[in-house]
């Protein structure tokens, strides 16, 4: 389709000609986190299926669930989930026409990324310490 287009000037705002800014980063992250969460949903389904298969099957994999890999998996999934959740709520506020001023929109983008990271660290810390104490 665009094969015989000779004009070197950019036709539309492609990623490589844009200066990175926070709302652009959060838009890309929203899409990427959504796709990652779909994969996490597949893993959650398998986890519930392992649970339904009975204690024998669960015990076979429980050393994986209760390992640093399991803790990291929880950290990553919860961090991405909380990010996507907060950014999604912001998208719905944006749909109503509010909070769209560039300064506020950019500030919130950074704030949501930082808040998601802090919440993920806190929840993982609480989880690991409660499991360790049991």
């Amino acid at each position, binding site marked *: 389709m665009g094969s015989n287009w000779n004009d070197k000037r950019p036709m539309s705002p492609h990623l490589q000609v844009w200066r990175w800014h926070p709302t652009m980063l959060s838009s890309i992250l929203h*899409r990427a986190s*959504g*796709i990652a*969460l*779909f994969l996490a*949903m*597949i893993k*959650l*389904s*398998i986890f*519930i*299926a392992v*649970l*339904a298969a009975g*204690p024998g099957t*669960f*015990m076979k994999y*429980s050393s994986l669930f*209760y390992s640093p890999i399991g803790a990291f998996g*929880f950290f990553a999934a*919860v961090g991405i*989930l909380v990010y996507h*959740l907060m950014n*999604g*709520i912001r998208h*719905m506020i944006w*749909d109503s026409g509010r909070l769209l001023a560039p300064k506020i929109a950019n500030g919130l983008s950074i704030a949501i990324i930082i808040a998601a990271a802090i919440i993920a660290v806190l*929840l993982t810390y*609480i*989880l690991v310490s*409660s*499991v360790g*104490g*049991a």
Partner: protein
Amino acid sequence: MATDFRTPMSRVKGHGSAQDGTHHYIAHRVSAIILAITVPLLIWGIMASAPGGFDGFVEYIESTFGALVLLTFVTAAFYHGRSGLTESILDYFQGGKRMALLLVATLVSIGFWLLAVLSILRIWLGA
């Protein structure tokens, strides 16, 4: 009076509205609201169950509240996830590849949703 203002060329190319954009937009947001309510409950459920190991998780799903939260969550999540994947696939792929990916997204969503639902019901009914 003419009511169709499209050029013959645009009609031949088949470009234009598919008429279901509003439904997609609203359904995506309604499922998002359901997820916004169930996600905190789900995270709390996982964190409260994890120290109890196998028994902890099973006890959570055996309680009607836990089963209800999980069933609502996985249903809304696979609906919302398929809706979002569809959006991304339509943005980046054309032709046969697009059709194949849309089909894969649909089949994977339905398959793993059913796996989750059956597993939850099996545990809940076994209580």
